[in-house]
């Protein structure tokens, strides 16, 4: 067992990752290479297709029963939960020791009350993905993607007029939504003040936008966003989708559509801001020797080579700004994909999650509210109000 | 006498290519009489009855009921009723409902249904059981319900498939008498299947002996009993002694079997003897008391003879049995057929 003191490092380091479909192969390769180079404490990667939330919860349960993994892959949706449960160990030392000069935005994203509890792998902002061919077909200029939501809406209408589905501004959770709220100067949740900002101009405007677009047919309504929207876009049936940049390889995989990327359109009257979610690993073992071994393994993710491979595969923001323009590393990639530069340079706001167990339930409540808005069962204003009230109850119950 | 039922050259094969279960059966049942079908297990009795009822179709041949061709008619349109060996009552219905059921299917009005059911129930003495379920009846009572249900439609022809064989002997005696009385009372035509000799002999106006899907012999019971057409019939009706003929009895050089009924043997000396009497002597091997009579098992060499004598006849160890010549039947050993005498 990984926790038994006798066998601190001679058993493999166990790292759990869900979301195998999201860059799982790349992750496996990175650790395979690590294992090949360093046989002392090899990594066993336990990967599943579970969602990030399920992965975190299962890990928490096994940790509580005393036989958990050494590290767990997290996203912003689960990071806070791991910390609140006391499962995540501080990673500052490990980060410092690696000597990696991390992007400021990354460090901001992972610092909780001044301490970092994870070793990041990549930071993914959301971005506008659009289908070059459909743009042309709709009489739009693919070189001038929409920069505001009004333009986005117009473009969606034009595409919808061709018979394809227009575009989706919403997402399968509140990832996009948090960006829209920020664009109009709010914050869905402030960890410091514990204030909620769902019921804010940005929140209302976002829900309004979703409802209007669904109403005029320029946005399809997917009740199961992840399965349907991605598939529709990959199949060339959806013109635009605002989603995480890290989804790039999966969307690209079908090879049928000419994907172009652009920064997330700005909310009308707001500022351009994307949401960023950090994908990384929290160290969960409490055994110092094993912590060492885990840290050692995770540090490979911070090497310029790893960052290059990751970004090349995912269109995410490089953890190390220095490699971006380095001809030895990413310069080539950006040259080949000029769209990516704008995406990389977006203003970002970290995707926050609610503390403790509240996040999962909030997340579900959010998706339900969004769907009601999309189906125009609930007006936007009412939806934000009731969602905020329900979320407040959840926070109070913590 | 008019024929209530005519079966013409009926043949039945269940699966093509397999042997015939019924092989060219032709018979008539006289109106107002009881015709009994007799034969060993599996000889086709039930199959014949089911074909007459319309529950099976004949592979070839015709059926006439009261001179109307019914070969292709549904059971209910043939105006026949049937009493099953296994009763075939509806377990979820009361006795009254069971009896009324055929009338209900014929859309008879409820009031009349009740009257007619009560009528037949009275004939069979089950008026007091009308509200019971079949599960709450004894075997004899169930069979009476079955008969009532068959009678209530006043069918032209009543088919009964071993109606008494599942019952205990006392009930069997009782119901046998009741069935005959009933038939006398309402003058119906009955086709009755049994493999009980007593039933066949006592109840029927005609017996039909079947064997392997064919009719072996048919006629009034006393005639069949007196002149069985084969060893099969002789054994089946009256449990005849069938033994190889002693050398002196052989004629024409082919093997013969003699048949003598146990009750036709007498003890030598207790009856007037004739010149040509058939005589056997042997050792008494076993002696079964059968109420007023005794069955003596007498061994003469390899051969065992049974004789039925008075229970109080004096017997010793060595016994001589005598039968008069006209009670001695002879059969061809090979084919079992009666020798012309």
């Amino acid at each position, binding site marked *: 067992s990984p926790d038994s003191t006798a066998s601190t490092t001679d058993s493999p380091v166990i790292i759990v990752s869900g979301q*195998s479909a999201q860059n799982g192969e790349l992750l496996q390769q990175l650790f395979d290479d690590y294992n090949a180079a360093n046989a002392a404490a090899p990594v066993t990667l336990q990967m599943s297709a579970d969602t990030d939330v399920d992965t975190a919860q299962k890990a928490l349960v*096994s940790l509580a029963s005393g036989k958990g993994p050494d590290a767990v892959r997290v996203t912003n949706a689960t990071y806070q939960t791991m910390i609140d449960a006391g499962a995540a160990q501080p990673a500052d030392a490990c980060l410092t020791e690696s000597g990696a000069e991390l992007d400021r935005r990354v460090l901001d994203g992972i610092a909780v009350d001044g301490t970092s509890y994870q070793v990041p792998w990549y930071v993914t902002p959301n971005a506008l993905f659009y289908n070059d061919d459909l743009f042309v077909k709709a009489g739009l200029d693919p070189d001038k993607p929409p920069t505001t939501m009004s333009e986005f809406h117009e473009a969606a209408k034009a595409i919808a007029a061709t018979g394809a589905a227009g575009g989706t501004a919403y997402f399968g959770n509140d990832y996009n939504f948090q960006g829209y709220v920020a664009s109009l100067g709010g914050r869905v949740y402030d960890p410091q003040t514990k204030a909620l900002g769902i019921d804010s101009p940005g929140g209302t405007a976002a829900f309004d936008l979703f409802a209007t677009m669904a109403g005029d047919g320029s946005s399809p309504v997917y009740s199961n966003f*992840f*399965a349907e929207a991605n598939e529709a876009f990959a199949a060339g049936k959806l013109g635009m989708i605002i989603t995480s940049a890290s989804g790039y390889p999966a*969307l690209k995989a079908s090879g049928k559509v000419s994907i172009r990327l652009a920064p997330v359109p700005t909310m009308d009257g707001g500022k351009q801001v994307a949401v960023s979610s950090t994908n990384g690993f929290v160290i969960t073992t409490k055994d110092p020797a094993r912590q060492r071994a885990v840290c050692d393994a995770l540090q490979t993710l911070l090497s310029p080579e790893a960052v290059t491979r990751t970004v090349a595969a995912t269109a995410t923001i490089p953890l190390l700004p220095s490699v971006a323009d380095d001809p030895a590393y990413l310069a080539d990639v950006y040259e080949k994909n000029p769209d990516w530069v704008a995406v990389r340079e977006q203003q970002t706001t970290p995707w926050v999650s609610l503390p403790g167990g509240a996040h999962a339930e909030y997340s579900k409540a959010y998706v339900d509210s969004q769907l009601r808005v999309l189906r125009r069962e609930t007006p936007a204003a009412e939806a934000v109000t009731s969602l905020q009230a329900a979320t407040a109850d959840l926070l109070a119950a913590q | 006498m008019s024929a209530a039922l005519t079966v013409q050259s009926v043949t039945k094969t269940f699966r093509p290519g397999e042997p015939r279960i019924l092989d060219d059966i032709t018979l008539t049942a006289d109106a107002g009489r009881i015709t009994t079908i007799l034969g060993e297990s599996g000889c086709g009795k039930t199959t014949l009855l089911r074909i007459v009822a319309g529950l099976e179709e004949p592979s070839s041949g015709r059926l006439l009921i009261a001179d109307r061709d019914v070969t292709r008619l549904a059971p209910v349109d043939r105006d026949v009723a049937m009493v099953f060996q296994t009763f075939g009552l509806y377990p979820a219905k009361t006795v009254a409902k069971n009896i009324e059921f055929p009338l209900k299917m014929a859309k008879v009005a409820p009031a009349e249904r009740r009257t007619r059911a009560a009528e037949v129930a009275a004939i069979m003495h089950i008026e007091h059981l009308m509200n019971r379920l079949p599960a709450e009846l004894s075997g004899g009572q169930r069979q009476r319900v079955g008969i009532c249900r068959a009678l209530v439609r006043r069918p032209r022809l009543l088919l009964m498939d071993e109606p008494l064989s599942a019952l205990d002997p006392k009930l069997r005696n009782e119901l046998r008498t009741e069935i005959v009385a009933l038939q006398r009372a309402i003058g119906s035509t009955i086709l009755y299947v049994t493999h009980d000799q007593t039933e066949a002999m006592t109840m029927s106006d005609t017996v039909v002996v079947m064997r392997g899907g064919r009719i072996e012999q048919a006629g009034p019971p006393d005639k069949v009993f007196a002149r069985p057409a084969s060893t099969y019939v002789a054994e089946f009706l009256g449990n005849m002694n069938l033994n190889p003929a002693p050398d002196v009895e052989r004629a024409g050089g082919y093997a013969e079997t003699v048949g003598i009924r146990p009750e036709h043997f007498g003890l030598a000396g207790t009856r007037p003897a004739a010149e040509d009497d058939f005589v056997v002597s042997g050792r008494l091997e076993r002696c079964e008391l059968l109420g007023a009579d005794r069955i003596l098992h007498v061994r003469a060499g390899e051969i065992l003879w049974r004789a039925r004598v008075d229970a109080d006849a004096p017997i010793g160890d060595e016994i001589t049995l005598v039968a008069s010549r006209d009670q001695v039947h002879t059969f061809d050993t090979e084919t079992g057929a009666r020798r012309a005498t």
Partner: protein
Amino acid sequence: MKIIPQLARHGLLALGAVYVLGPIALMLLSAFTPTDDILAGRYLANLTLGNFVEVAERVPLALYYRNSIIVCLGTFLLQVVVCVPAAYALARLRFAGRTVGVWLLGLLILLPFQVIAIPIYLVFRNVGLIDTLPALILPFVGNAFAIFLLRQYFVSLPQSMFDAARIDGAGTLAVLLEIVVPSSRPAITSLGVFTITAAWNAYFWPSFVLTDQSSATIPFGVISFVNSDAVTDYGPQMAMATLSVLPLLAAFLIAQRQFIRGLALKGQTG
């Protein structure tokens, strides 16, 4: 002359078979078709085993099969060992508490496992059974449904057989092993079908008590192709579904004669 109604029956059944077999046929077709072709509706245009290869690469199939087989057989065998004697006693022996026992069976048979899943989960967590195969087996060994099914059959066995066995000197164990079990093959087979199907298909309970792969059963393989939030890989998904379904289908086709005899209920629930 009875040809027409017979044909009508076959026609009706064939129509129903579209509903019954449709999904299975679609699954089999898709399993051998590349995902792109599936999406385009071109089944079998490019016959491939690639989906199966991909499944084999992405999930530890052998492990899943091994676990599923252990769980199925373990549950079934233990159930037979535990439930046959109980069902025999409830069907054939007279003792105080029998009526209560039979009555309780009738009550428990409808109790959804989900009602009690949480406490069992908590207990297993405390005794360290999480992520183990016994955790998937133990809760189903003493099973009201199994006892009910077997009892139903035992009640219909002829009393004279049991009397004969007692006179022949068979003790309780000998009666069970020599008389009851051999005479009850159909009932035990149908119990096997119920139990093995349930264990093979179970997802609710395993998803409760399993957090890692080591004890995962076949349904996890399927789920791992369903739950991803990226574009769905229909080909491998259907290949995995096929792989998960085939063993049971084969087993059923082999055992069906026995199975169907065992399902002919005669008696009452009591």
